[in-house]
Each structure stands twice: as C-alpha cells, then as structure tokens.
C-alpha cells in the first residue's frame, strides 16, 4: 500500500469544489451525503434554485433546527428556509421535472464510477438490498451529473474503476467526478484529469485510479474559489 504524497481534502472541501460548478440561477438537485453539503458552501453572489424530489423547487438554504415543520422538508428530511419564489408540488410533477430533463445539474454521491461514466451508488452487493430513491431518475435525466465522493474506499481501493462491480444506477451518465484529491471530466474519449489537490501529481492520482487518466491541457491545482 502506497503512502499519500499529501493530505486528502475533507468532505466539506469536496462539496465546496462541487459548489463552484453550480451555475448561478440554475436548478440543482443535491443527493444525500457530501452533495447535500454544497448548499451552504456556494460562492458569494451565486443563487441557486434547489429542487428536492418530495416536491419543492426554489429553496436556497437549509435550516439546521431539528424541530421544523414536517410538512416543509427536503428529500433528505431537512428543513429548507422559506424564500420568495418557491413552489410546492406533488411527486408526479417532481419527477416530470427530473425525467423531462429540466434539472440543470445534479450532484450525487458515488460508490463506483467507471471510465465510461457509469455510476453505481445504490447498493452494496454484500448487503443484497438497497435504496434507489430518486437517484436513477436524476442520474439518467439531469442535464449534467456531478459525482462528489472520496477517491477511494476506506482500504484505499479505487472507486473510479474500469468496470463497476456494484449494481449500476445508470450507465454512461456522469459528466464530472470531484473527489478528495482530484477533479476529473468524463468525455467520450476517456477520463481527463482537470485538477489535483495540493501535493498530488497526476501520477499520484493515477496510482489509485483504475482507468487511464488523460491529463488535461488545462490541468491546474484544485480550485477553491
């Protein structure tokens, strides 16, 4: 087992980097886990319209209280702050919005991503049962799919793999992968390393990534703002 050349970034850092890619004024759906952290880490002046599967569009910040109104929640069970211009609707409308391709960006967690952009994030095979939720609809139909996850498993095995061994959420759906050491773009020609964390060379990232990484002509340090 190799040693890391430099510290890996935190989950908050991953979310902060993902938040940089969210377009001002865009309609965005954040998955649970690291993606959910994005909502409070947006760059100054950027305002998003968050969508949650349970039938809400237009919120921009979460409340941290634990005793909010259970009739006004997001899909993760958190309490959004009410903002002007919000709307409530039922699940038919909510998934019409998703499946119809009206979500600009979704940020999802990942268990595995393949070199072709296949995503697996809903079931660990040895458990034999899992939760699909809205993830398959989002991964299949959002205009842009960003996966925000740790680069490897806890025992340092690659999560960016040649072929997913876990059940797929959707094939060929991921546009960008943001991890605790790298930012990688998925193109038809393969994976392109766009950024790496401080102290990590492209070779260091490649060492814990299964598919071959092409180093982008615009390769640069991990962006923070």
């Amino acid at each position, binding site marked *: 087992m190799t040693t890391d050349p430099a510290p890996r970034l935190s989950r908050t850092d991953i979310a902060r980097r993902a938040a940089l890619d969210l377009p001002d004024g865009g309609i965005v759906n954040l998955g649970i886990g690291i993606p959910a952290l994005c909502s409070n880490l947006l760059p100054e002046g950027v305002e998003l319209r968050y969508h949650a599967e349970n039938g809400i569009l237009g919120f921009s910040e979460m409340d941290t209280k634990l005793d909010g109104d259970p009739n006004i929640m997001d899909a993760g*069970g958190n309490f959004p702050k009410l903002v002007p211009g919000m709307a409530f609707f039922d699940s038919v409308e909510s998934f019409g919005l998703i499946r119809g391709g009206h979500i600009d960006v979704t940020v999802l967690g990942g268990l595995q991503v393949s070199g072709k952009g296949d995503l697996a994030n809903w079931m660990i095979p040895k458990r034999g049962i899992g939760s699909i939720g809205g993830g398959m609809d989002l991964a299949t139909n959002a205009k842009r799919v960003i996966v925000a996850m740790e680069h490897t498993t806890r025992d340092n095995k690659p999560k960016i793999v040649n072929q997913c061994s876990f059940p797929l959420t959707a094939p*060929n759906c991921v546009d960008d992968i943001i991890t605790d050491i790298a930012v990688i773009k998925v193109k038809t020609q393969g994976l392109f390393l766009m950024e790496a964390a401080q102290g990590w060379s492209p070779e260091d990232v490649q060492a814990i990534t299964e598919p071959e990484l092409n180093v982008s002509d615009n390769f640069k340090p991990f962006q923070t703002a």
Partner: protein
Amino acid sequence: MPDNKTIDNFKDAVADIPNGASIMIGGFGGAGGQPTRLMLALRDLGVNDLTIIGNVAGISATTHYGWREGPDDPKPVDQGMFFASNQASKIICSFPVPGTTNPLSEIEKAWRDGKAEVEIVPQGTLIEQIRAAGAGIPAFYTPTGVGTSVAEGKEIREFQGRTYLLEQALPGDYAFIRAQKADTHGNLQYVGTSRAFGPAMATAAKITIAEVDEIVEPGGIDAERVGTLGAYVDRIVQRKAGDPYP
C-alpha cells in the same frame, strides 16, 4: 342531495380491508404527509398478507428520518409496523434501506428472515406507475433504469435514438392519504411538501381514505386550492385536535 364522505373514526374507516389487500400509503416518507392514524388502525385491525406500496419505507423508526426531533415529539412510526407484526408479506417502494451506520429496519429484518418480499423501484417510475393506474394508462416507456438491474425481464425499445424501458401501471386496493383539510365531498387540500405520493395514489386505488386535520363544508376549500378531487376520495376521517403525531 350532496353526499358526506365523513367516517366517524379510523377504526371504522379501515374495517372492510381484507387479508391480501394492497395498501398504498401516501406522503413521501417521514412524518409530513404520512397517514399515521390510518396506519395504526390497520395494524390494530390485524389482517395479514398485505402488500404495502409506499416511497421511502420503514426507515424512520430507526433513523428518525423525516420526523421532528423536538423534546416533546413522539417516537417515529412507519410502514415497518406491518412487518414487525407479520401483517405484510411484500413492499413495493423506492427507499427501504438506510445507510450502513443505521440499525436495521423492520422491513430489512423481515427481508433477511425470508418473511417479506421487497421490490425496489426507481422513485420516478413508481410515482408514474401509480399515476398511470389512475389515469387509464396501462403502460409507458421511461429512460430510467435502462442498463441496470431494474430493466431485467422488461421490454426495451428505442424512440428517436434513445433507449427506454416499458413499465406498467400500478393500481392499489386501498390508498391511505394524509391531507390538512377536506370538505365533505372529499376534496382535499395539502400543505407544503406533504402531498408527494398522495394525489396520485388517490386516483389509483379502488378505495381512497383520507386522514385530515379538519373537515369543512363544501366551499371551505378554495376551488383553486383543491389538490385532490373529491371524485377520487371515498372516505374522510378527522384526527383529534392535539394529536401528538404530526
């Protein structure tokens, strides 16, 4: 003569549900929109071999998902109650399993013990299947699930160069719906994110029963604010004021 769909109490509202019935449970998962009193009445009725149809299913009791955690708030209850009591043999849902760090839910326990079948459906497909059942659409194509285990055994077809799956309508015998207000004709008004699966389920079940905070005369709900038409609702029951469940 206008009818009045009010039933006096939850016990009577569910009394005719037979063994083997399929029960749709509205809301999204969590307290908001969950027809908790109807669920408790069904548990007390003691029928069995039920199929439960819901969305997020059975994870609140162990994870507190979707429930307030104020000092006076009650302990969460969820669809797991029908599996703990061995009344349900199957659930069709999208999200029955919490993260690995959470305790096992009653549904996962029943599944591990081989006592319950768990059918996991993408959320958008599940709600569209229910909507289809209520709207006279027997089947439709969706891109969601193509190239995954969800597609196994299903027809695949191309339209305009993209690949889709054929999914079929999903009706139910009963739907339990939670709303904030009903008029005596059965029109329902919802608040916030509590509607979720409720409106579609109301259209898709043979018998729809609504649990509400308040029953008003016709006209007590603005014609622009009817979330579920009385045409779809068979019975309405008012909760007691001050019920500790949300």
